[in-house]
């Protein structure tokens, strides 16, 4: 369970870590847009180069970033298989009954798998290099326009930060409960899908009970410290945009341009 690293912070003092959270959030969104712009496989080259570059500069181990995919590998495979058969355009390679694999299907499947993988890699790089606190403050700041129409942006931000903060805590809890049930002879890695799912029940029930208990305790703790008693909370760390953020934006811009250029065969490469 410790392998599930999605949403965890990886401490380091790299350039990427020091970027403003708002800039990183927007750039991550830009990166996701970049990934979804690709419709020619060649255009994935700048995407790969970009993500490698960011990983290297951020000093997060490449393996760690790759590991974040592990959590969604099942979805990737499932979606790819569905898309493989859903798209029936192009040359037919294989067909049986009403199913057929076509060149169009293969292309869509690969495209979708790569998109999902890069999406998760990009967003986990964001959480690896940004503490939950910075992330929420960034989100709250970005949601400022909504505040003018009375959307409770601060509450939304705090809910998000609590959710992020609780991922590792609940993971640890799962670990502990699993160990306790294993000590009573429970086995989680034997049998078919249904047997395994049923074996998880002794873990999930205590987990839910403790999650509710924790939520209750947290609510009390917030109340006890007069949370939200003052309308305008001040911040200990004031985020400021700097030169680094501008450079990062420019670099991302260059890569997006590259993707668009390759997509539209700007240089006549194919």
């Amino acid at each position, binding site marked *: 369970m410790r392998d599930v690293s999605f949403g965890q912070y*990886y401490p*380091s003092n790299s350039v990427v870590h020091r970027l403003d959270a708002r800039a990183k959030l927007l750039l991550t969104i830009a990166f996701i847009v970049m990934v979804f712009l690709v419709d020619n496989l060649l255009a994935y080259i700048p995407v790969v180069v970009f993500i490698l570059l960011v990983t290297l500069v951020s000093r997060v181990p490449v393996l760690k970033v790759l590991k974040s995919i592990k959590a969604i590998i099942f979805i990737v495979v499932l979606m790819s298989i569905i898309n493989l058969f859903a798209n029936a355009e192009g040359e037919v390679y294989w067909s049986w009954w009403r199913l057929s694999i076509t060149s169009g299907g293969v292309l869509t499947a690969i495209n979708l798998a790569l998109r999902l993988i890069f999406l998760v890699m990009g967003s986990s790089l964001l959480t690896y290099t940004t503490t939950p606190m910075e992330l929420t403050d960034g989100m709250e700041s970005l949601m400022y326009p909504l505040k003018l129409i009375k959307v409770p942006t601060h509450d939304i931000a705090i809910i998000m930060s609590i959710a992020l903060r609780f991922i590792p805590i609940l993971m640890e809890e799962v670990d502990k409960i699993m160990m306790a049930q294993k000590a009573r*002879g429970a086995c989680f890695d034997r049998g078919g899908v249904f047997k395994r799912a049923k074996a998880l029940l*002794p873990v999930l029930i205590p987990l839910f009970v403790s999650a509710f208990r924790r939520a209750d305790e947290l609510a009390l703790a917030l109340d006890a410290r007069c949370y939200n008693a003052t309308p305008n909370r001040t911040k200990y760390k004031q985020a400021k945009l700097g030169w680094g953020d501008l450079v990062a934006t420019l670099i991302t811009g260059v890569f997006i341009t590259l993707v668009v250029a390759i997509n539209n065969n700007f240089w006549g490469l194919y």
Partner: protein
Amino acid sequence: MQIKVENLKYTYSPKTPFEKVALDDITFTINDGDTIGIIGSTGSGKSTLCQHFNALIRISKGKIYVGEWELHAKKLDLGALRQAVGMLFQYPEYQLFADTVKDDVAFGPINFGKSKEDADILAKYALELVGINYDEVAEKSPFELSGGQKRRVAIAGIIASRPEVLVLDEPTAGLDPQGKREILDLVTELKKSYVKTVIMISHNMDEIAEYCNRVIVLNDSKLLYDTTPRELFANKELLSQTGLQAPHTVRVKELLKDRGIDLQGTPLTQAELISLLGGVL
């Protein structure tokens, strides 16, 4: 069943910034019939060490022999081992899950291959042993019970599988004094039946002094002392080095000494202290 630990080493999250050595070159032997206390400050590696005994943590470096089993071997009959080495975690009441108390206690025996009928009999026996009124509580949901009762049910869930070795990770944490005593008396009671060896983590020196015949002191991932409670608590320097406090009985003796009453020996229980006092009065 003898337990032999040889040069055990364990590191959490190796090769990451979170790397932390939890156990460093631990060697000791637990004999059949021992009630052994494991003490040390928070984060000294007590729990990590105990989770090795039934292979919840697989050995990365070193060796452990539990009776016939070699825990460092690649292939290991985990079922049989975990049946023989029962382990009670900290706050075990948080792992209750079943619809009824009876089913929760029978979970272990069923996992270890007992039939439903046999498991129910074992569950009934275990619940009665921990002092739960079976007819009244068996069909209730474990979530309806009080804290102390939940703890007892959780203990019943471990001993229903009839382990020969019982590992207890702070079994009395969070209980009232009455509850603490009951749980420890239960452990003493169990040692008269099928449980041969008890390994107990505790921060309460009174408990260690009264119930354990041996004690292991861990400090900063290393094994510092392997001794008897009497020797450990008689030696003031040993204690202050590790930041441990002597049990109340020993502290009373020290206070009396400061006031000119010198008791001979190290009293570990109230009864011992009273009989020593009887000698000088």
